[in-house]
């Protein structure tokens, strides 16, 4: 993006549905996918006279997440009402947190293994708890037909995580979302299913454009409805271009236009103005008189901190430093989630070569999981079984392409590597036998010897082909090494 005519400035507001059994202020189930309006009660219907009671689990999960995001947890927090009229909001206000949120001032580090951007610390302004709204469904013939309202989701606990405008490209925004999702998955605080809406993202975007009169900023636009990582990236990219075009046409800068809300239309791949969300955005926040403040001690905060598991960033580092994996391999394994990491750790514990173990987990194991569309928990080859195969590779008994065939048969049959090798008729070639074979081939191929001697080591490949013809069980790597050793000694 460095050659672009502008910098994109991006801050994200992420809403995470917390994994509780019940809603934030009533004891209706939060289960997803049930028939409309079957998970409501007087409280979440906003019935006259009903009163909210805070879910302790939601508070705990919120606190755990905030701590994992390096946030500070104040000892005192309270609830506020955000007042606006919308039919998926039956009380006419959303119970949220305004001036004293449950956590503030944290950060999340992001980096790219593909060098798409410089490593960056995205600062977090706050993470606060609030209740979700219901769902409204609008018919195509908008304006004519009714909208339909389902209140099953109303009152589901959300953690809203608000970042500073620290991101500078759509790719960074996507990486932030992915890293955040991974962290939430490790913490097991949310299902993080973007399709089901348990992880949602709004982006505040504007441009900094260098001009002859200095740097100008375009008016900030909030983009909503980005329901996948891809749409986060595309939505922001589209919006940046649009803002640049509008600025070139109108010259309007920040402060000259009110903040605009635009929705991402994934099918048309454009952002569209959402006028109805802007009109009278005066939320009249005030403390909710029906809910009492929450007070936590430093000891209670430390108790929760203890429950935080090893997080992705720390794990990546450990896989690199303690296991010698490459940055890329560590990244791939950790990004798959805790399950694959545990598989790797078990495998590394029972095999001798950590790096080989890492390559196989990141390679064949992951490829198989993806192909079969299964999770690592459903993967039927135990780390011990796989370690057996790796042992044969290390000892030179199997080359990597044969090992892959053995792996495939092991997967299907569930047999050990040794049994599969036997059944496949792959015989172990004696070291002396192999050296004899190599000597014979070198004698027959003086040209290869000359080529190698003159610096072209690749020429030895011709010998490997001939060796395989003589004995299909030979290990090409071994043949290569022995031949080179003999020639160099000549």
């Amino acid at each position: 993006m460095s050659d672009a005519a502008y910098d994109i400035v991006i801050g994200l507001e992420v809403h995470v549905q917390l994994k509780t059994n019940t809603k934030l202020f009533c004891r209706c189930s939060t289960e997803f996918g049930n028939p409309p309006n079957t998970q409501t009660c007087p409280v979440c219907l906003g019935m006259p006279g009903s009163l909210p009671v805070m879910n302790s689990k939601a508070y705990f999960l919120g606190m755990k997440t905030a701590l994992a995001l390096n946030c500070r947890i104040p000892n005192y927090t309270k609830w506020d009402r955000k007042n606006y009229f919308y039919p998926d909001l039956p009380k006419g206000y959303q119970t949220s947190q305004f001036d004293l949120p449950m956590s503030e001032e944290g950060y999340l580090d992001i980096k790219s293994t593909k060098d798409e951007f410089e490593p960056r610390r995205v600062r977090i302004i706050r993470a606060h708890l609030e209740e979700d709204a219901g769902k409204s469904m609008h018919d195509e013939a908008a304006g004519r037909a009714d909208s339909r309202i389902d209140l099953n989701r109303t009152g589901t606990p959300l953690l809203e995580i608000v970042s500073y405008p620290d991101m500078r490209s759509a790719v960074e925004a996507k990486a932030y979302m992915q890293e955040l999702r991974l962290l939430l998955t490790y913490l097991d605080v949310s299902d993080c299913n973007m399709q089901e809406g348990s992880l949602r993202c709004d982006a505040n975007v504007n441009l900094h454009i260098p001009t002859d009169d200095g740097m100008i900023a375009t008016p900030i636009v909030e983009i909503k409805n980005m329901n996948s990582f891809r749409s986060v990236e595309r939505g922001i990219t589209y919006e940046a271009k649009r803002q640049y075009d509008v600025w070139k046409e109108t010259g309007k800068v920040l402060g000259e236009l009110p903040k605009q809300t635009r929705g991402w239309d994934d099918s048309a791949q454009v952002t569209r103005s959402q006028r109805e969300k802007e009109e009278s955005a005066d939320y009249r926040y005030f403390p909710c008189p029906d809910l009492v403040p929450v007070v936590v001690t430093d000891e209670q905060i430390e108790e929760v901190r203890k429950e935080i598991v090893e997080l992705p960033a720390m794990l990546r580092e450990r896989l690199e430093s303690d296991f010698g994996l490459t940055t890329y391999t560590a990244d791939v394994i950790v990004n798959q989630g805790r399950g694959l990491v545990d598989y790797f750790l078990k495998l590394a514990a029972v095999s001798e070569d950590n790096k080989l173990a890492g390559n196989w987990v990141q390679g064949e194991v992951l490829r198989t999981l993806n192909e079969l569309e299964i999770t690592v928990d459903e993967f039927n080859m135990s780390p011990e079984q796989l370690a057996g195969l790796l042992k044969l590779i290390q000892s030179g008994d199997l080359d990597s392409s044969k090992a892959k065939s053995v792996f495939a048969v092991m997967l299907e049959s569930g047999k050990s590597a040794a049994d599969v090798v036997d059944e496949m008729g792959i015989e172990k070639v004696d070291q002396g036998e192999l050296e004899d074979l190599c000597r014979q081939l070198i004698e027959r191929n003086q040209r290869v010897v000359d080529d190698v001697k003159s610096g072209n080591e690749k020429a030895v490949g011709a010998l490997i082909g001939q060796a395989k013809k003589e004995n299909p069980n030979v290990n090409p790597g071994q043949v290569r090494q022995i031949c080179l050793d003999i020639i160099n000694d000549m």
Partner: protein
Amino acid sequence: MSLTRQDVEKVALLARLKFDEEQLDKMTDHMVQIVQYVHKLSELNTDDVEPMAHALDVHNALAEDVPRPSLSREEALKNAPKSDGEYFRVPAVLGE
């Protein structure tokens, strides 16, 4: 403190109320009167006073995360001005 008819009209939209001309005049009158009266609070210096949102010093009223039965859909929709037996129905959310 000045409170104009235009202010009142703006507040009416925010409050989702609608007045005809005569009502608007009367409402403006009454609101001006009341706002003038409550303005007497500004006589007091409250710089060092902590605001009081609750009558009581209670905190941490929390419930266990254990589900309780919800209402049946029939009960939930029973009081709805308009429903189709599955959903609440409201006039189109998106205008025009």
